[in-house]
């Protein structure tokens, strides 16, 4: 009886926390008109899914990154009306903002039918700005080149007048979205347009977690950062520059052996579970021994003396008074993919 009442109470609390995205979308619609006028572009702006509800805390944090993405689409994506006509497109550029629910996630897509992002142009700019060296650039594939636009200090605007002029780039957007345990996906085709997809958890209060085991220790992985789970045989794991990878649908997925990172005694297994996680546009496969199940957890911060422990975001109690640590997926991705981050400092 008490439990049922508490269930209702909890649901009630969650409901109060949920607000429709429309609040932010309406604000953006007004901004689009102003930005388009300032940039000398003609824009058809469409909105769908304003009734999709999200945690108030997330909605409040979304306004800035969305505004930035849309500003980018108008400033850098959509061509000038004359240019569009020359290219056989209609004068008015399309920018569409759409949201829909997908399980415990909300997917927000910002799509334009503008010029698209040219990986070669990205390469030139990145080298010009000193973000990477020419020889580093030559080693990168098209997708990795596109990822460079998320580095601090990157902007492909060709002239100053075209600049958003706010001194912030997509790196800020990436940081904001990652902070909300969100994932960014970029899809672009030269001449056809660009789509940025943000996948966000519906709420931050109670998180659904995947409980995994490594070397007989349990850890919780927030399910909102898990993209998929693979079963991988030892002989499918290959190395690139001595770093372990697997091929997943034609793409190279870097691996992280949690037991090695945490310096735990490794179990001699021939089959492993790989939990594919994402932070913003980066992907990483975490190699584990076994999956123990899924559970709703209330994650508590480690706080105080343990604030500086790397790779752990908090702890939770699975109901048997045993503390289970919650992996900080974002920090692990950043740590393991550090060589790519080093690119920023060069």
């Amino acid at each position: 009886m008490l439990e049922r009442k508490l269930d209702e109470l909890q649901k009630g609390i969650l409901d109060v926390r949920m607000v429709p995205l429309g609040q932010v979308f309406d604000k953006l619609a007004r901004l689009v008109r102003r930005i388009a006028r300032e940039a000398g572009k003609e824009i058809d702006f469409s909105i769908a899914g304003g009734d999709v509800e999200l945690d108030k805390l997330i909605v409040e944090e979304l306004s800035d990154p969305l505004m930035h993405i849309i500003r980018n689409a108008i400033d850098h994506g959509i061509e000038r009306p004359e240019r569009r006509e020359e290219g056989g497109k209609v004068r008015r550029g399309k920018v569409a903002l759409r949201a829909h629910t997908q399980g415990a996630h909300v997917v927000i897509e910002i799509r334009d039918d503008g010029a698209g992002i040219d990986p070669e142009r990205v390469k030139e700019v990145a080298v010009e700005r000193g973000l990477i060296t020419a020889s580093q650039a030559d080693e990168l594939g098209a997708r990795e080149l596109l990822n460079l636009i998320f580095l601090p200090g990157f902007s492909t605007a060709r002239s100053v007048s075209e600049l958003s002029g706010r001194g912030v780039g997509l790196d800020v957007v990436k940081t904001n979205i990652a902070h909300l345990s969100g994932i960014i996906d970029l899809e672009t085709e030269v001449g056809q347009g660009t789509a940025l997809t943000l996948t966000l958890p519906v709420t931050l209060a109670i998180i659904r977690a995947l409980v995994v085991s490594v070397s007989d220790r349990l850890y919780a992985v927030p399910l909102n950062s898990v993209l998929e789970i693979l079963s991988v045989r030892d002989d499918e794991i290959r190395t690139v520059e001595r770093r372990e990878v697997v091929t997943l649908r034609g793409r190279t997925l870097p691996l992280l052996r949690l037991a090695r990172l945490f310096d735990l005694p490794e179990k001699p297994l021939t089959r492993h579970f790989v939990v594919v996680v994402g932070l913003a546009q980066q992907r990483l496969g975490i190699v584990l021994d076994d999956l123990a199940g899924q559970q709703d957890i209330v994650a508590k911060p480690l706080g105080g003396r343990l604030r500086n422990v790397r790779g752990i975001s908090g702890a939770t109690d699975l109901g048997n008074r045993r503390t289970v640590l919650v992996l900080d997926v974002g920090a692990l991705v950043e740590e393991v993919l550090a060589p790519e981050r080093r690119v920023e400092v060069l």
Partner: protein
Amino acid sequence: VPGLNELLDAFFYRPDEDAGPLFELAEAVEPVSAAQEEQPEEFLAFALTSETYAVPVALLREIVKVPTLTEVPRAPASLLGVMDLRGEVMPVYDIKTRLRLPPTPRLARPEVPASAVAKASRLLVVRSEGGDAAIFVDQVLGVVRLRPSTIEPAPPGIGGGEHEYITGIGRRGEALYILLDVEQCLT
């Protein structure tokens, strides 16, 4: 709803957490002289290996039996692990290496059997500026009252070095109590 069950769970009394009553050490032995009206201070005496240490009782939150600990990867060696103290995540420290004593077995590791530590061992949950923490001790001996004027400073060469872990040495008859600076031991 597991989340709420966990919250409620924290309120239940658990006999296994009860560390038992404390007895006072040599309480009645001290002859009260009229000349010394100095108020004695209370310390909790405990054993680390074969040595006897003590900390001010005022710093103690509680004493609990050693529960199942969770290992924290890549944490300093002095951190034995974390425990769940009625819903609170509490770090558990082994201060023995600070005091040049042999370390406590890493009992948070699944490879280390629970029998590796003595049944008498306890955790002292202490208040501290950097965040409350639990300290592993081999045995709790009891409360001892010491007059501040009878506390000797730590002899040179003992407890010195980079940190002043030892604030002084208290005596009662033959017994020797090494008084610890909790804050320094946890730093």
